[in-house]
């Protein structure tokens, strides 16, 4: 159980892992997330489910290495097992036939957008995906995404692939041109990008959903670490989310809360860099 069936680096520092977890695969839906622990002393970190195969009993996870936990996960190889994987957690995306939907995927957010786009497409929506990254090298799953949408707009900040634009530029153009067709907008990616997508869609009054990836421990509604303020109310991402109305989210406190362990994270990472260096020298 929890054996890594395949692992590959789909872009620098971005890893795709297919993990054997039949109980999770059996119940996974687009929008769900899992909590992963690389080893016994590791943190519990939330990762959105990027794909699942019920027959094979596998779930696909995509992660970018930023700190100790994600780096530890990325160092596991095919055939290794995760120490723990818990899920599916959270609520699945609320999907219906909206007519036309726009999904904005930024960076690693491409992974969780994929199963949502796929299912929205399957149930008859016209799906427009705006996929963005800083530069060409950081783009992944471009073909995979193209296969599940009707329009696929790829942009990079530096123009090395697709349009030279921020994801909010095509988003704004689409809304200006055909606001009445658009039933819903999804935005998944870095919090700062989701914030600007919400600001872009707000004047058009189009329903906009963001998937939050906050700090969590248990992920089952016990610790309260994932709380955020939505529409003036304290809400819990793990059991009430992870998707919320992007126009109601108080983004600035979310952005700040993400930084609260910055010093400890650096201290921990520096320590492991030394440990891993020593291991390699042996």
């Amino acid at each position: 159980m929890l054996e890594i069936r395949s692992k590959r680096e789909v872009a620098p520092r971005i890893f795709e892992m297919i993990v054997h977890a039949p109980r999770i695969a059996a119940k996974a839906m687009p929008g769900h997330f899992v909590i992963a622990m690389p080893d016994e002393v590791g943190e519990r970190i939330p990762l959105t489910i990027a794909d699942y195969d019920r027959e094979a009993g596998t779930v696909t996870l995509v992660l970018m290495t930023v700190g100790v936990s994600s780096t530890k996960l990325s160092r596991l190889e095919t055939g290794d097992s995760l120490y723990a994987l818990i899920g599916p957690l959270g609520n699945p995306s609320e999907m219906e036939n909206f007519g036309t939907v726009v999904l904005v995927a930024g960076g690693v957010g491409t992974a969780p957008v994929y199963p949502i786009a796929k299912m929205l497409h399957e149930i008859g929506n016209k799906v427009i995906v705006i996929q963005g990254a800083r530069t060409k090298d950081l783009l992944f799953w471009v073909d995979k995404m193209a296969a599940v949408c009707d329009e696929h707009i790829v942009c990079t900040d530096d123009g090395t692939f697709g349009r030279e634009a921020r994801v909010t530029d095509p988003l704004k153009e689409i809304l200006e041109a055909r606001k009445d067709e658009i039933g819903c907008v999804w935005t998944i990616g870095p919090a700062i990008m989701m914030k600007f997508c919400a600001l872009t869609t707000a004047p058009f009054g189009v329903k906009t959903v963001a998937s939050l990836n906050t700090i969590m421990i248990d992920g089952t509604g016990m610790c309260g670490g994932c709380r955020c303020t939505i529409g003036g109310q304290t809400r819990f991402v793990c059991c009430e989310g992870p998707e919320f109305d992007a126009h109601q989210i108080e983004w600035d406190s979310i952005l700040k809360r993400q930084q609260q362990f910055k010093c400890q994270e650096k201290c921990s990472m520096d320590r492991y860099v030394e440990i891993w260096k020593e291991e390699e020298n042996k």
Partner: protein
Amino acid sequence: MKNINEIQPTRTPMREQDPKVRARNFQEVPFGYSVEEARQEAARCLNCPRPLCVTGCPVNVNIPEFVALIDQGDFAGAARAIKKTSALPAVCGRVCPQESQCESKCILGRKFEPLAIGRLERFAADYERENNLVQIPEKAPATGKKVAVIGSGPAGLTVAGDLILRGHEVVVFEAFHQAGGVLMYGIPEFRLPKDIVQKEVHYLEELGVQFELNQVGGRSVDVRELLEKEGFDAVFLGVGAGLPSFMPIPGTELGNVYSANEYLTRSNLMKAYRFPEYDTPIAVGKNVCVIGGGNVAMDAARTALRLGAETVKIVYRRSEEELPARAEEVHHAKEEGVEFKLLTNPISLQGDENGIIKSITCVQMELGEPDATGRRSPVKIEGSEFTFETDLVIFAVGTGANPIITQSVEGLELNKRGYIVADENGRTSIDGVWAGGDIVTGAATVIKAMGAGRQAAKDMHEWLMNK
């Protein structure tokens, strides 16, 4: 019965770490009785013909029996006597509020100090375990019935222990990566060493209980599927308390503002107190504020001290008399240097430019008329606002019901606060599903959850045998 005049009037003291030393380490505070001390204390028992202490125990441990065995020097026998009715003696001896249960009924207490039943229970369990004298009792013949227990806290472990002895197959599903529930994530190491919890869990495994870790009731485990597809005959829900409460004041979303659940889970279960050896971080405050006056608040305050805080304040809106924490916990906290700001209530939290807590504003309170609970309700004194610096705030003001399991089981009746409705035997509105512990009562104690588990297990057994 013994002649009361020959009895030592005071309890045999239990040695403990010096407050100054222990406030900076995570080792257990009391050392426990030696063999001599235990026998000295056990000799104080009057052996009443109608022992009231037993009626004060939610799981009715035969107290005179085990105390007499200690008196006679049969320490392992004493542990086994307790285990006839309690699955977790080493835990209960440490964390039960004996002063309001068994010890409050002790006849000795009318004239002298009551018998130190909790300390003796702890001694017996520790003696048996530390000397490798734990025996696996004989189980009833297999019944062919299969029971699922969701949650491995005190209620779930009790149900599992009781039903496995009665010959049923028992599978426990636990959401975390280690079994024990609140005993692992909530109660700190210095009050309940985690090794002891794991040994109690291991004892149940040896009895044949199967533990499935990382399984979340209502998510990866579905109650209806367990009953209808996976061959289980009955289910017990012991999923514990849920979402932590925060006060409706500005600033609770700031960095370094925690719920006690989060703070304690980081330190206890994730072992953040050993960071960076363990990867999970925790904020180490210099001047820490804990809001609330219950046992959880004391645990959080004492944890903050041990992590290195210079000052730790308990902020509580009523007076010392109303503190809901056990007297012993308050005493320990004070000895270690926790300050009590009583009749004080926070009204807002202020952050710095990075969104990290920097100060707290409170008001002074006075006690007014008694409220529905009979306690005098605190009333704000106008114009008494004051602000002081703090770099870590922990809210220990209670929890609500966890919505995950309760909302995922169709037809499960809940009360208006979201807790599961269960009768005195733990039966819920669904045939074959029982519930007990905090998910029924709201936040309570370890032993009350065990009591609920005991009652449910008895009823489940009868139901299973008639099915």
